């Protein structure tokens, strides 16, 4: 009886869907979302909270998604009141530290979605780190 319960618990754990946060090899992502685009617009921005749980820096070197024609990492910089977007090809996460992709700061620039994305939809973006680690992250489309 006892071992049966144990097997049942193990099976349940194995079958439980992965938690909303993506986590692999010490890098975790929370609150990943993409702003819904106004009609006719083909450029979207994605935001998330990245956390490096390891004791050495991790470098985000690429982002890819089959849901978009292209995905690039950018940063909005406001200098002297002027906003400009700069391409940030490599983004370093310091050891044991977090980095927030947020409106007006770091963001994923997602171009030409393959289908119209509306609030509530989800789309997976693969984040690639130096060393070959690829972290698939599910982004929720929000208005």
């Amino acid at each position, binding site marked *: 009886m006892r071992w049966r319960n144990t097997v049942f618990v193990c099976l349940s754990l194995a079958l439980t869907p992965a938690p909303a946060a993506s986590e692999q090899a010490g890098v975790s992502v929370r609150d990943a979302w993409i*702003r819904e685009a*106004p009609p*006719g*617009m083909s450029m*979207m921005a994605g935001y998330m909270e990245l956390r490096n749980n390891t004791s050495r820096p991790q470098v985000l070197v690429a982002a890819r998604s089959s849901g978009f024609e292209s995905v690039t990492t950018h940063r909005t910089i406001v200098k*002297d009141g002027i906003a400009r977007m700069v391409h940030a090809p490599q983004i370093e996460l310091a050891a044991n530290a977090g980095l927030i992709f947020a409106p007006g700061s770091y963001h994923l620039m997602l171009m030409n979605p393959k289908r119209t994305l509306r609030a509530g939809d989800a789309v997976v973006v693969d984040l690639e780190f130096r060393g070959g680690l690829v972290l698939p992250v599910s982004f929720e489309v929000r208005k």
Partner: protein
Amino acid sequence: MPLKFSVMITSVALAAILAGVWLADVSREHDSRAVLLPDQVITLFPDPKPLTAFTLTDHKNRVFDLASLKGKWSFLFFGFTHCPDVCPTTLAVLARAREDIAKNALGAKDIQFVFVSVDPNRDTAGVLRQYVEYFDASFLGVTGDNAQIANLAGQLGAAYQVAITPGVENYPVYHTAGVFLVDPQARYHAVFTPPHDAEAISKRFKVVRELEAGNAA
């Protein structure tokens, strides 16, 4: 007894006058502080600058000019529709600020929100219409030729740069991230500085509108 009574009345009257003077002082000090000290959200100008003639066209192909600014408080934001981060973020914040403002006693009848596109090459009236109405049905989207845009932008000190590159579809546009507040007399009254927050904007605007109503009375 009558003497004592009149002394008492006089004292009460005196106290009331003193309290009145003190309250007026506090209120004046509060007003001048609000007017003179910029905070992180808004910079109010002590002498609002009257704007001069300009002509743009809105998202329904109607003329938008100096007369369109009169009789209303206008929130103006300069940007472009091919802007994935700052513009939609700001317009979403402004839509929420408008909701907040509409809820308070003075309402939102005498306010308008104007998105000025500095990228007329891509932002036609049709594109602007879909874009601004997505955020709020009352929002206006206006643009014009380069000289027309430069006229209004220059008067507000709104800097921008359109880096059109031949053959490049997604050329970058740099633009000021501030939101400009023009008063019902078409004067450049204040500027909201980024990062923008809906509640902060609606709260500051309430004070500005009350101050202005006090000045007019």
